[in-house]
């Protein structure tokens, strides 16, 4: 066992043990939010790192959240069954949009704008079906009458912390699996030069579809989790172009080419927003996004690798550290 492995196990054990020692609800709440959003940002980066920039992930997240909540409220289906249905819906949508895009080689600007349309559609459908979804006023899953586990509703922040931590770790594990698979090399070849990759025998359409599907399913799952945790969703917080851009922003600030980059992005963005909210109160409305926007532009111009990515570049000589991040 190497030194870095031991270090990692210690960090993990500390993360798991945290809620048993430390129970300040507000801080735990922040941690849960950071973990859930980190998972969502990681899902976006799964395809973003290969040059497949999607602005449609707000749509997948919205479907994950709304399908789960609607099935629970209207049909009484437990989220344990509802979430798989939501994932199937998001997956089908990803295939419907992804297949023609990849088959007909819609790349670059075109791909971004098509996916932009996707998150636009989901937002408009949620708003238009206001008789069921509550429209732009938002939607609340009904409080569980019976078993809390059955309804996947917990009042305890510590429980949520552990769930979110587990999901986040699984997300990182998926990243690691892809990182070490042939898929990664295929997709890297595709992002460099599609024609050359195809000529070398890479099935471009299938590889792109695979990563899009994984990414969309994970994002929808993040949406469902967010809905169950917050117990309130509105079209603006889980779907639409703003949410998609928020994912892009966090991933780029953290660094979308490294596994923990999106997590670093989530920590920075959420802490920034919370600090502004606490110090300026309602006067801060708009300021957080103003700062986000300026930072996003500056990062893209001066630090396209992101914070963590650039730091790792600098510490390349310490491979033991890099290996785990």
């Amino acid at each position, binding site marked *: 066992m190497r030194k870095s492995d031991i270090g990692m196990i210690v960090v993990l054990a500390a993360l798991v043990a945290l809620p048993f020692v430390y129970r300040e609800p507000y801080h735990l709440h922040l941690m849960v939010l950071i973990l859930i959003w980190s998972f969502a940002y990681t899902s976006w980066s799964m395809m973003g790192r290969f*040059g497949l*920039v999607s*602005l449609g992930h707000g749509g997948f997240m919205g479907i994950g959240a709304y399908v789960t909540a609607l099935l629970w409220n209207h049909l009484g289906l437990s989220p344990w069954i509802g979430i798989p249905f939501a994932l199937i819906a998001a997956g089908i949508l990803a295939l*419907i*949009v992804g297949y*023609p*895009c990849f088959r*007909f*080689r*819609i790349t*670059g*600007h*075109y791909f*971004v*704008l*098509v996916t*932009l*349309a*996707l998150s*636009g*559609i989901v937002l*408009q*459908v949620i*708003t*238009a079906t206001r008789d069921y979804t509550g429209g732009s006023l938002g939607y609340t899953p009904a409080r569980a009458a019976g078993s809390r586990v059955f309804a996947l509703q917990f009042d305890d922040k510590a429980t949520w912390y552990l769930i979110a931590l587990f999901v986040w770790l699984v997300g990182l594990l998926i990243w690691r699996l892809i990182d070490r698979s042939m898929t990664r090399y295929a997709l890297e070849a595709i992002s460099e030069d599609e024609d050359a990759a195809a000529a070398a025998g890479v099935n471009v359409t299938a590889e792109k579809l695979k990563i899009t599907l994984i990414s969309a399913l994970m994002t929808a799952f993040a949406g469902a989790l967010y809905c169950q945790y917050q117990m309130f969703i509105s079209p603006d917080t889980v779907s*639409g*172009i703003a949410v998609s*851009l928020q994912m*892009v*922003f966090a991933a*780029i600030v953290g660094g979308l080419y490294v596994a923990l980059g999106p997590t670093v992005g989530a920590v920075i963005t959420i802490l920034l927003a919370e600090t502004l909210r606490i110090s300026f109160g309602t006067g801060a*409305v*708009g*300021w*957080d*996004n*103003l700062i*986000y*926007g*300026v*930072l*996003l*532009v500056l990062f*893209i*111009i001066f630090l*396209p690798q992101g914070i963590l990515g650039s730091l790792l570049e600098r510490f390349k000589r310490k491979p033991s550290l890099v290996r785990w991040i």
Partner: protein
Amino acid sequence: MQAFLDIFDIYLLEAVLNGILLGGVLALLALGLNLIFGVIDVTWICYAELVMIGMYAMYYLVQYFGLSYFIAAPLTILLVAALGALLHYLVIAPLLSAPPINQLLATGGVLFVLQSFATVAFGIDFRNLGIRLPILTIGDMNFSYARLLSFAAALIGMVAVYLFMTRTFTGTAIRAVAQDRQIMALMGVDTRKIYIITSALGGALAGLAACLLVLQYDVHPFVGLTFGPITFLICVLGGLGNFFGGFIASFVFAEIISLGGLFSDLEWGYVFAFGFFIVMMFIRPAGLLARRR
């Protein structure tokens, strides 16, 4: 039954005609975006936000400084043109050699900046110009003068751009740069200057659209989101950089939204338009007017 059909047809005709009027303004926006894409090879995700800023400019010039609409309009167009040039100079120019995706995302950052700037500076209240134009009634159909005026002004704006592009030296240089960026630099054309001029021109078109839209819509910081995405779809459907395709696609979309809105809520009009767009991507991925390879 006969009476029902009569009423229905009148409404249908009215919706079709209103769709054409809406198409004019959309075509103006699509032209600006296509111009920038065709020449600089950049998509301004924040294009509709420039329009939003222009609408606020109109609101303040008319309401607070008491200027007449026709004096405020040229000032707004100049202001947004300057904003367009500034956007190019500050954000796009440093990224010209970066991957295209980075340029696109940087303008996404500008979208955040403009939206939240408007939230901070102007608040989130809905504001309107307070100019109420009369309604024109032909037969049983109603058309607002605001829409007719917008349509006419949009057409004039497009003709002016066409003349500029074909009849002036600078316009010719812009078209040449759109055809080949590297060679034109070798031919002694200062491409940086051409880029700035094109960006200003794109901004001016956004400014003109703002002057027209402010007659029909209330201004609020997120107003860009109501017609921003639809403009991108129009440009992609027409073929990015293809001026004529964008023009046709504007009217197709405007009709879908207008007719969809007739049969149910306005949101469903948008949903139909989006759905149509995705179906068209299957059939004609490179745009409506693209030739089959």
